[in-house]
């Protein structure tokens, strides 16, 4: 080879070197000769930022790429896989004799059985696998129940499950009938009232005497066949004689008429009237105009009087009941027109009256009286007076119907329909509590016309 060829070959190799330098990122000099090659080689960038890396395997693939200021990783440490890679790698989840990632299993295979059992007591039962088995995969439990019928009594009953049974199946409780008490008979129950299927026929009063019929048309027929227009019998205390009046006269036009009738019929009467069924109007019954107590003279036993059918109870003389010193209650629930001036004044035991139908108080001082005597209930023990049937037209031309009605009565409450406050609310008698003490006047009953 000639020198020129050798020189050309060497120049070519120098050029190749500068090409390689350029490929490595080096800086090429302006004159690319052997003299400048070391400098060019020195301009090549070496190494970068290399960090160490530790990888913990998971159940998912991991791809880790150097980025940012990190150019690469070295050394890279990959930790060992342990049982912590899955929380289910526990001894109880691994078959006995098998080890997974260092965890030895303790799980014993189930050898199950199917069972059917009957329960014959109310006590708790425990069932364990039979020999050769270590579990029960299915168990059928059949109770042994008793059908039971219970008849109620007047005492409480505790019913226990008998021996040999696990409980009660169908439990039948018989209905309560009147047989539960021997006293539930028609004769012991108020007329028209039904108790446990037994309709009563007892119409009031005492029970000492026996009668074959009562309130039969216009007459009574006693047990000995006697026909009268009144009947007498003793109450159970055998102290008070009661009389039920059922006169065949349906009305008494004036007081003398009724007085004469009573004189003829009941001249020896001494007791309490507990029912006047068919007369519709009463005048001065208890006392005649001559101030003689006709019927109930100095009666110290009468506590209750019922005038059930009475439509009018109009007295023109005061204190009609004054001789009934222990009188407690009067029933006038059908009376639509009333005038009871001072009728019960002074009767300290008197406590109640039924005036449910009273709507005609057009008589002067109908429930009132005079300042000296007081009104209808003066000096009594009455605590409530209720007048639900009163209307705005109930008073006529008078405003004194309640004057002194509660004189010497303390703490009584009087009830009126709500629409009457505008009618009587400005009356002096109402404002002063009807002459009583601590009277309450309420307009709380349903409004009337």
């Amino acid at each position, binding site marked *: 080879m000639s020198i020129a060829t050798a020189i050309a070959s060497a120049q070519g190799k120098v050029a190749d070197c500068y090409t390689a330098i350029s490929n490595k990122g080096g800086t090429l000099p302006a004159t690319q000769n052997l003299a400048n090659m070391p400098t060019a080689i020195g301009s090549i960038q070496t190494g970068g930022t290399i960090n160490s890396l530790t990888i913990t395997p998971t159940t998912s693939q991991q791809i880790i790429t150097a980025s940012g200021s990190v150019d690469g990783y070295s050394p890279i440490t990959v930790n060992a896989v342990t049982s912590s890679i899955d929380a289910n790698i526990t001894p109880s989840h691994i078959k006995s004799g098998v080890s997974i990632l260092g965890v030895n299993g303790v799980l014993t295979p189930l050898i199950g059985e199917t069972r059917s059992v009957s329960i014959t007591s109310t006590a708790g039962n425990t069932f364990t696998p039979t020999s050769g088995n270590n579990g029960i995969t299915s168990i059928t439990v059949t109770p042994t129940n008793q059908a039971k019928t219970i008849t109620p009594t007047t005492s409480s009953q505790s019913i226990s499950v008998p021996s040999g049974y696990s409980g009660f199946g169908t439990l039948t409780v018989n209905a309560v009938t009147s047989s539960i008490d021997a006293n539930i008979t028609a004769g012991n129950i108020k007329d028209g009232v039904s108790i446990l299927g037994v309709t009563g026929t007892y119409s009031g009063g005492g029970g000492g005497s026996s009668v074959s019929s009562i309130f039969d048309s216009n007459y009574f027929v006693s047990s000995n066949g006697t026909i009268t227009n009144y009947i007498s019998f003793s109450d159970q205390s055998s102290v008070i004689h009661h009389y039920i009046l059922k006169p065949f006269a349906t009305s008494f036009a004036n007081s003398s008429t009724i007085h004469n009738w009573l004189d003829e019929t009941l001249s020896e009467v001494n007791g309490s009237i507990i029912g006047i069924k068919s007369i519709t109007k009463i005048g001065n019954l208890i006392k005649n105009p001559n101030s003689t107590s006709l019927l109930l003279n100095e009666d110290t036993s009468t506590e209750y009087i019922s005038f059930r059918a009475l439509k009018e109870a109009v007295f023109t003389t005061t204190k009609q009941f004054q001789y009934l010193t222990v009188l407690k209650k009067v029933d006038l629930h059908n009376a639509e027109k009333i005038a009871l001036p001072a009728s019960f004044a002074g009767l300290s035991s008197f406590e109640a009256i039924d005036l449910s139908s009273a709507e005609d108080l057009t008589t002067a001082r109908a429930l009132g009286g005079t300042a*000296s005597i007081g009104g209808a209930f003066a000096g009594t023990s009455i605590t409530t007076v209720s007048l639900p049937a009163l209307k705005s037209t109930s008073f006529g031309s008078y405003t004194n119907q309640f004057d002194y009605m509660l004189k010497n009565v303390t703490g009584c409450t009087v009830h009126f329909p709500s629409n009457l406050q505008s009618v009587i*609310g400005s009356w002096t008698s109402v404002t*002063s*509590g009807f002459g009583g003490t*601590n009277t*309450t006047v309420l307009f709380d009953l349903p409004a009337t016309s």
Partner: protein
Amino acid sequence: MKIKTTYVGTLNGINGMWCGFKPDGVIITEERPVLYAEENMDLIRIADEENMGSSLWLHNGDVQENYREEEHEEPEEEDVPEV
């Protein structure tokens, strides 16, 4: 003699009048003075000596001074006057 108040108003939605006492919770719409006689006494109107009973409402200019007290006497029973 003493004057007590009758309270007119409403309690629990019910209209009423409470004579001489005031229940808790009552909504009062009007107060009315009522003159009461002492126990076993009657009020006598001085002008005409009429027995007014044990209590009366002082209104329309009426005042306590128009009345005096008198011991109550229980009379015989009597017919009820028309007025």
